[in-house]
């Protein structure tokens, strides 16, 4: 039976369990003088029965979905005849793919060795057996749960606390998903990175000056040893982010100040959402804009002044990224500026300072920690931004600080290394995970630090 059908069936059984439990609790209570004799409301008895019916089966189903395929594969692979048995991981995966493809009918059976065809047949039959036995087990389990829930219904049974206990755990589990995600991220990048650092020393990676991840397909290929020095990527990332910040910080900050301190209500209600449109535009649109409009425009502009600007310049990508970040900075700065108590402004104005002097010498210094925190969050955003640079920045890793040149960034390289088909454990793909580790570490540190500052600042004036 299909997994989705099993789910529907379990749901239906659970619903049946609900009505069964509720009905029984009523039937028990009625002769005794109505449901007030029960410990809990009838629907809690119903829920209790439904949970006993569906939850254990769902758990088993989840485990089965996760481990079934791996288990069957390993059984099949350990039973292949010795002459085609795989020797290493690569040939193991190759054979496994072949067997699964034949079993699912993607590959023709004719012309394959008898061993492979037999393995495919046993794979199919194991799959069918596993699925049916699973369905049977789930149904038996659900029936048993149903009976148990039905049996437990009695006047004294405390159904509500039991149900609420389950709900509490469910809620806690959902909240803990955030932790699992973080752990998942750390593990997924860390394991592959450790594997990568076995082939490329970590020192060479972090301090190496040359990046050309092309590894040889043939042994005798020229110039394809693959060098994984990530410094040009780091410099490129910083350069693009610096250009972005150079645009976003002044514009974002000044518009936040103007909107918070000067603008009339009408201007504010129009300009604020209009600026926030920029935050809602997908990055791929910015990338398209940067690559097809801004970059050619800058190149032609440079040509007319006799300056050569690369058509994949850091300036185009960084500039458009800066536009993207403007609303991010301006809304964060707006929050912290409006949080500065009015009494401080009034004090400064009463001393005879002009409005701009009040802003520059009283409001901004008071809001500075929050603003710095906001800018750091924006920097972390710029470093991790992907689509704009993938579409508008270059692929070649130049070690340069000239924004008119083409540079490449960490995120561009992650995308280039991982899109397309290659062996999963080649140094090329592993390098992407090592870059991901660097990116995650740096942005994590920036985020934690910035969030800490912002939080502390908020408490100061609350």
């Amino acid at each position, binding site marked *: 039976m299909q997994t989705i059908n099993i789910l529907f069936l379990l749901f239906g059984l659970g619903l049946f369990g609900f009505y069964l439990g509720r009905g029984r609790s009523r039937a028990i209570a009625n002769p005794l003088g109505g449901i007030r004799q029960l410990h809990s409301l009838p629907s809690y008895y119903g829920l209790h029965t439904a949970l006993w019916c569906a939850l254990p089966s769902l758990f088993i189903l989840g485990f089965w979905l996760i481990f079934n395929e791996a288990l069957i594969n390993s059984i099949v692979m350990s039973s292949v005849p010795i002459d085609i048995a795989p020797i290493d991981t690569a040939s193991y995966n190759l054979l496994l793919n072949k067997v699964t493809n034949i079993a699912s009918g993607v590959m023709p059976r004719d012309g394959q060795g008898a061993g492979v065809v037999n393995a495919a047949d046993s794979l199919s039959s194991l799959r069918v057996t596993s699925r049916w036995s699973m369905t049977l087990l789930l149904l038996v389990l659900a029936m048993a749960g149903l009976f148990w829930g039905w049996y437990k219904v009695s006047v004294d049974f405390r159904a509500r606390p039991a149900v609420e206990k389950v709900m509490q755990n469910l809620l806690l589990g959902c909240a803990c998903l955030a932790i699992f995600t973080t752990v998942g991220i750390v593990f997924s990048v860390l394991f592959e990175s450790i594997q990568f650092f076995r082939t490329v020393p970590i020192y060479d990676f972090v301090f190496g000056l040359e990046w050309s991840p092309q590894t040889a397909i043939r042994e005798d290929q020229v110039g394809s040893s693959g060098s994984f020095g990530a410094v040009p990527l780091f410099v490129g990332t910083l350069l693009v982010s610096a250009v972005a910040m150079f645009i976003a910080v002044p514009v974002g900050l*000044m518009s936040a100040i103007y909107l918070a301190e000067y603008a009339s209500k009408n201007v504010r209600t129009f300009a604020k959402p209009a600026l926030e449109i920029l935050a809602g535009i*997908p990055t*791929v649109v910015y990338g398209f804009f940067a690559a097809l409009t801004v970059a050619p425009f800058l190149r032609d502009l440079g040509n007319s002044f006799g300056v050569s600007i690369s058509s994949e310049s850091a300036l185009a990508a960084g500039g458009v990224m800066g536009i993207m970040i403007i609303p991010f900075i301006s809304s964060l700065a707006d929050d912290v500026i409006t949080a500065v108590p009015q009494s401080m402004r009034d004090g400064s104005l009463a001393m005879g300072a002009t409005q701009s002097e009040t802003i520059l010498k009283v409001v901004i210094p008071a809001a500075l920690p929050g603003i710095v925190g906001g800018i750091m969050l924006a920097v972390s955003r710029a470093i991790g931004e992907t689509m704009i640079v993938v579409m508008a920045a270059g692929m070649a890793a130049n070690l340069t600080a000239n924004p008119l040149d083409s540079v490449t960034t960490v995120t561009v390289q*992650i995308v280039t290394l991982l899109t397309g088909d290659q062996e999963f454990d080649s140094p090329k793909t592993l390098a992407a995970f090592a870059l991901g580790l660097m*990116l995650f570490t740096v942005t994590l540190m920036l985020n934690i630090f910035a969030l800490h500052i912002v939080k502390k600042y908020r408490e100061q004036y609350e």
Partner: protein
Amino acid sequence: MSKATEHLSKIKHSLAGRNRAEARFRWYGRIAIFIGLAAVAVLFGDIINKGHGAFRTTYINLDVSYDQDLIGVNNLADSEQLSAGNWDALTKSALRAKFPNISGRSDKRRLNNLLSNGAGFDLKDRLLESPQLLGKTESVWMLADDDIDTYYKSWLAGEAYAARLSDKQVIWIGELHQQGLIKLQFNSNFFMRGDSREPEQAGILGAAIGSFLTLIVTLMLSFPIGVCAAIYLEEFAPKNRWTDFIEVNINNLAAVPSIIFGLLGLAIFINFFHVPRSVPLIGGLVLTLMTLPTIIITSRAAIKSVPPSIREAALGMGASRYQVVLHHVLPLALPGMLTGAIIGMAQALGETAPLLMIGMVAFIVDIPSGFSDPATVLPVQIFLWADSPERAFIEKTSAAIMVLLSFLIIMNTSAVWLRKRLERRW
């Protein structure tokens, strides 16, 4: 002069400069806002300017004779005959009939290039729809090639772009135009078809449905999980290190670069759990993890805005804490949560980078029909088209962006509307 008057005159003298500084400062603010608004205007103007043309495309009218011998089909029910049929012969002969004086191999090829190479298959579909046409002749509007389309549109606009056309093709198009046999028409292909290598046949339906399926998975997972997490953290969590740790994690995840979630999806879902690549299911899983922090944070704000007096009243009436939350807090907080969910979905709809990591970047022609069919999504389709060298794809890309942006605008305005409509001030 006393010291006081000296100070006064100093202040008076500096006053003009200080007022000028004040005015300057205000202008900096105005300029900053102007830059921001100009960026919005330029961005939208540029996209609309580039993309508006893609909603109409060029069709050429020719007399097609559905000659049985020409196609090699005499029985339309025979699928083997249909797939072996020489459908291009129909378009070729129609073109030859229109321009009989053409000879020479290269001229013939150029003539055939007037029409899209999918035009023959369109005729096949037409024939299958009305089989009585077999052996007869009718005049049909047929899809033109993308180069012809680009040229014809630019020529109509007065700035002909003929770089990809031969001189003869330009003359033929001129003749067709004089006879009224070439025209621009609403581009239904763009909305009704999947991706294609040929710009004139490429459409966004496949990507739009892929986006829709992916978003359904995301919504089904992230909304319940996010609401549950928010309820726990706001209503039940004890104040201890563990909940602090959960909170730090959520705030950090909200700021982690999206591409990292792609790496997570690749390493955990694909390589560990063997979820197939390129399917809406895995796209939805990855986007769920990505949008979860947003939904949790907005849901918590919504729960927080329900005043404590409601909870106290319910508790006073003897409700359990779960009854308080489920019967009173949750219904009151729901509009705010829905707003957060829509904003999270808008974020997920525009996301590209993590989906590149999990293989949704593949070239997929078929329109997906389920959660485990290979699919791509609108932003990735935009990325793919933006990378294509054909000039006609620039127009398509901009038009796809317009479609994507309209979806986003609808979602965001409905979120704002929902908030205004349903929000309660306490």
